[in-house]
C-alpha cells in the first residue's frame, strides 16, 4: 500500500493506483479529457500533467502509477502553465458555437476554460482548420468534427465496450478528424453513450438536439424500466416533462452505460398518457372523478366475488410496477378479494432482443420482484388467460397497458369476454380501449419505489415531479381501493410500504431504503 503526498496532503492507496485516482481520494480534481473511468488509458489529451519529484518532465496523472514516497504537485506554476497551454491548443480551431451547442453547460472545454484558460486567443481566425459539422453518423448521434478535441474516448468505447469499431481517426496532425468509414454508420445498440462520454459537443444526441438548455434541467436518480437489467440512470426533466436519461455509474449493474432502447424509454412518461380517470358506459368514454371511480371499482369487484365466487375475479399484475406496488396488489388479491387468480407475465410485445452487454430479453424492470413477492408467471398466467378466454372471469383488475405478448387484436378479443375490467395504467393502449374503468397512474418519473432486477438486486428509483394531470400515485390508489374493499391501510408512501414488506417478505427481510442506498442491495435467495 504505497503512501504519497499530493499538494502536501498525505494519502495511502492500493498498489497500482494512478496519481489521478489517488488525488481524487483526497478531493483534488486533476483536469482531464481522454481519461475515463471505464475505458482504457490513452494519455493523449495531456491535460492531467502534474509534477512528480525526481522526474524531470511533467507526468500524466492518468497513467502514472503511484509508488512509495512519491511527492506530487498539481498546483505549481509549471503545471498551471502546461495545462493552460494544452487547453489553448485544444481551443485554437474551436468554432466557439456554444450558443447553438447542446453540450453548453456541461462541456469540458467551457468548464476548464473558466479555471485554466480565461486567455485571449493568440490564434488567427483565418488560420482555423475547418472540418465537417452536423454529420448524421447513425444511431442516436450527430457528429460535429470541428468541436472534437480528439480525445479518442469514442474510438475506445466502440473498440472496448461494443467491439463494433465504427469510429476512428482519419488524417494526421491538425487535420486529424474523427469519422465513420464511408457508408458504414454507427451500428450498435449503445450509441447514445457516445454523447455521454464525449467531453465536448462533438458527439451529441439526435433525440435531445436543440430541445432544452441543460442548465434548465433537474435530475433525479432513477432506474431504467426498459428491461430486467435495471440500469442505473439519472432522469432529467423540466417541469413535468422528461427530456433525457443519462446512465449513472454502477459497476454491479451497468458500469457507466445504458442501451439505446432504454435511453428512449423516457418518452413513455411524456407521450400517450392516461391523465384523467374515466369509465366506459355503453362503449362510450365518460369522465369520472377519483371520488366516484375507486368506490365503483371496489363495488364491482366485491359484487363479482359475492355473486360468482372469488374464482370469477382475477388480478393481472404488471412487472412494470414497483416492489411496493406489487406487494399491495398481492395483498388486495389474496386478502381483499380472496382470489387465487393472480399472475403476471414478463412477455411483452416486441422482439425480445438481447445481447451480451446489457439488454435482456425480459423488457420489464421488475419481473424478478414480482416473483419474489409471490406473484406467479408462466403457467399461472397462461391458465388465467385460459379462464378469461373461457369467459369464466367476470371482473378483472389489470395493471399496465398491455396484456402480455398478445397483439392488440388478440387483447381486444380476450378482454371482450370480461364483463368488468378495471385498469390501472400510465399509458393508453389496447387495455385502456377495452377497460370499463380506467385509473390513470403516475409514471416512473412521478413516483418512487424499488425494482428488483434480473439478478435479484433491489434498486431504488425516485419521483422527479408530482403526477401529471389527474394521474395518481399507485400506492395511494391501491390504499383507497383496498380500503374500499374493507381494509384499513394507513400507508403513507413507498417507504412505509417497503418497511411493511421487509418485515414479512423473506427475500426482502431486514432491508431498508438506507441499506438499499444509491446502488442497490441483493435480495436474499
Amino acid at each position, binding site marked *: 500500500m504505497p503512501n504519497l503526498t499530493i499538494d502536501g496532503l498525505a494519502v495511502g492507496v492500493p498498489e497500482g493506483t494512478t496519481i489521478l485516482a489517488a488525488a481524487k481520494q483526497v478531493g483534488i480534481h486533476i483536469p482531464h479529457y481522454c481519461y475515463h473511468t471505464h475505458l482504457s488509458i490513452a494519455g*493523449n489529451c495531456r491535460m492531467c500533467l502534474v509534477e512528480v519529484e525526481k522526474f524531470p518532465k511533467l507526468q500524466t496523472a492518468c497513467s502514472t502509477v503511484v509508488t512509495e514516497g512519491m511527492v506530487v504537485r498539481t498546483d505549481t506554476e509549471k503545471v498551471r502553465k502546461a495545462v493552460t497551454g494544452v487547453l489553448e*491548443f485544444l481551443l485554437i480551431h474551436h468554432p466557439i458555437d456554444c450558443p447553438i451547442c447542446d453540450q453548453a453547460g456541461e462541456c469540458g472545454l467551457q468548464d476548464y476554460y473558466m479555471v485554466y484558460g480565461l486567455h485571449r486567443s493568440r490564434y488567427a481566425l483565418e488560420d482555423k482548420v475547418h472540418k465537417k459539422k452536423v454529420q448524421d453518423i447513425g444511431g442516436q448521434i450527430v457528429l460535429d468534427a470541428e468541436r472534437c478535441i480528439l480525445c479518442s474516448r469514442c474510438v475506445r468505447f466502440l473498440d472496448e465496450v461494443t467491439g463494433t469499431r465504427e469510429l476512428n481517426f482519419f488524417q494526421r*496532425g491538425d487535420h486529424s478528424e474523427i469519422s465513420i468509414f464511408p457508408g458504414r454508420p454507427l451500428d450498435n445498440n449503445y450509441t447514445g453513450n457516445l454523447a455521454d462520454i464525449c467531453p465536448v459537443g462533438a458527439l451529441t444526441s439526435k433525440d435531445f438536439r436543440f430541445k432544452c438548455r441543460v442548465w434548465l434541467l433537474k435530475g433525479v436518480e432513477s432506474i431504467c424500466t426498459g428491461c430486467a437489467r435495471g440500469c442505473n440512470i439519472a432522469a432529467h426533466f423540466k417541469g413535468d416533462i422528461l427530456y433525457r436519461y443519462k446512465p449513472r455509474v454502477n459497476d454491479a449493474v451497468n458500469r457507466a452505460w445504458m442501451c439505446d432502447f432504454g435511453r428512449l424509454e423516457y418518452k413513455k412518461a411524456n407521450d400517450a398518457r392516461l391523465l384523467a380517470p374515466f369509465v366506459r358506459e355503453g362503449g362510450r368514454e365518460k369522465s369520472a372523478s377519483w371520488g366516484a371511480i375507486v368506490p365503483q371499482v371496489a363495488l364491482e369487484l366485491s359484487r363479482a366475488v359475492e355473486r360468482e365466487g372469488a374464482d370469477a375475479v382475477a388480478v393481472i399484475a404488471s412487472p412494470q410496477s414497483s416492489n411496493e406496488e406489487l406487494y399491495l396488489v398481492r395483498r388486495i388479491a389474496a386478502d381483499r378479494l380472496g382470489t387465487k387468480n393472480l399472475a403476471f407475465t414478463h412477455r411483452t410485445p416486441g422482439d425480445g432482443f438481447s445481447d451480451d452487454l446489457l439488454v435482456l430479453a425480459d423488457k420489464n424492470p421488475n419481473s424478478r420482484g414480482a416473483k419474489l413477492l409471490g406473484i406467479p408467471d408462466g403457467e399461472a398466467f397462461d391458465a388465467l388467460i385460459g379462464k378469461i378466454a373461457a369467459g369464466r372471469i367476470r371482473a378483472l383488475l389489470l395493471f399496465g397497458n398491455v396484456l402480455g405478448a398478445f397483439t392488440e387484436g388478440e387483447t381486444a378479443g380476450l378482454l371482450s369476454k370480461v364483463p368488468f375490467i378495471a385498469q390501472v395504467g400510465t399509458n393508453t393502449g389496447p387495455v385502456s380501449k377495452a377497460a370499463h374503468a380506467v385509473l390513470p397512474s403516475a409514471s416512473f418519473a412521478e413516483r418512487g419505489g424499488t425494482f428488483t432486477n434480473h439478478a435479484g438486486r433491489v434498486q431504488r428509483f425516485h419521483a422527479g415531479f408530482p403526477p401529471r394531470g389527474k394521474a395518481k400515485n399507485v400506492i395511494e390508489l391501491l390504499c383507497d381501493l383496498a380500503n374500499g374493499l374493507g381494509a384499513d391501510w394507513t400507508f403513507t408512501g413507498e417507504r412505509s410500504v417497503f418497511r411493511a414488506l421487509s418485515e414479512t417478505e423473506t427475500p426482502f427481510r431486514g432491508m431498508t431504503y438506507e441499506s438499499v442506498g444509491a446502488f442497490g442491495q441483493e435480495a436474499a435467495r
Partner: protein
Amino acid sequence: METVLTTHLADDRYRRIDGYRGSGGYEALRKAVSMPRESIVEEVRKANLRGRGGAGFPAGVKWGFLPKDFSRPRVLVVNADEGEPGTFKDRLILTRGPHLLVEGIAITCYALAIHSAYIYIRGEYVLEARILEEAVAEAYAAGFLGKDLLGSGFDLDVTVHRGAGAYICGEETSTINSLEGKRGWPRLKPPFPASVGAFGLPTLVNNVETLADVPWIVANGGERFAALGCEKNGGTRLVGVSGPVERPGVYELPANVNLRDVIYDIAGGLRGGKPLKAVIPGGSSTPVLRAEEIDVTFDIESMAKIGTMAGTSGVIVIPEGTCMVRALSVLMNFYAHESCGQCSPCREGTGWLRKITGRIEAGEGRPGDVELILDLCDNMMGRTICALADAAAMPAQSFIWKFREEFDRHIAERKCPFGNSF
C-alpha cells in the same frame, strides 16, 4: 582508419551472398552459434555500442531489458524506417551490404533467443526493400536463417515488412503498431516494448546500423570495437553529409571525429568556397549550430554539452545566404505534416508553428510572433507521448536563439530579406 561497415561496400558483389561470404561474411554468425549466448551479449556490452536510431541508447543495456524468463516468445523489430530528414545512412547498408544487417539480425536473435524478427522498412525504400528481400531469401537458402540455422538447433524467421511512408512510424512503438496493422500511433509508455511490444510480446527494437555493427563485434571482440571510438561511444558511425558541400555522402568515421573536419576535410568543404552559415548536426530534429560552433567532437556527450545532439549523424550543411526563416518554415511543414495527431500539444503545436513561420517568411509576421513561437515550444516540449513534439520544437527554438535577427528583420521589413531564397 579501421572500418566496420563500409570496408567492402564499394564492391558490387558484396550485396549478394556469395560476395559477402567471399569477404568473410557469416563467419561471425558461425562463431556466435558456438558461443554461450550470454557471452555474445557481454561482447556487445563491452563494445559500448550506442543505438544509431537517434537517441543513442546503449545497445547492451537495452538488450538486458528483455525479461529474464523465457516463458513468452520475444520479437526483434529492426527499424529501417529512416525517416529523419538529412538521414540516409541505413540506406547505404540496405543497398550495398544488406547481409551485414541480416547477419547482425541472426546473431542478435540467437544471443537473445528470439525466433521472429521483422524488418520494418520505410515505404519509399522500394528498391532497398527489394534488395533486402533478396538478401533475406539468399540467407534462408544458405541456411543462415530459418529452421535449425547452421545446424545449431536454433530457428529464426525474418520478415520484411514495408511501411506506407510516415515519419512517425519510425518511432519504435509506432513502428510496432504499424507492424501489427494498426494506425501508426506511438504508444503510451510504460509498458515499454521490452515487456509489452509487438503482438503483446517482449520486443527489442534496434536501428539497422546498430544491428549491422554486431557481426564485427562478435568477430573482433567488443573491446576492439570500443577502442575504435571514444570513451562512451564505441566503434564508428555512419555520418551522412548533405547540403552544398563538394562531396556529399555517407562516411564511416570514428565517433570522436571533429564536426568541422567532417565538413571541411571529409566532405571537401562548401562548394565554390562559400562561407558556412549553420549546421544541423544529427538530422533535422537536432538543434542547429552556428558556423563558429562546429569545432567540436561529434560524439553523443560532446554534442549534448553544447546543447545539441549527435542524433542520426545526418549533417545538414547550410551555406551563407540561406534564409533561416525559410529553412525553419520548411522543417515546420514537415513536422506538422508528420505529427500523428494524438497528443494535443503536438497535433496543434506543430500546425501552429508551421503557420507562424510560414507567415513570417511571407512578410506577414506580427510583432510578438517570435515570442509566441518560443512560448509554444515551451508548451510542447516534454509534454507528449513521443519525442516528435520535441523534434519539432528543438529546431524552432534553436533557429530563433541562434538567428533571432533574421526573424526580427522579416517582421520589421514585412518581407524576406533574402528574397525567399535558401
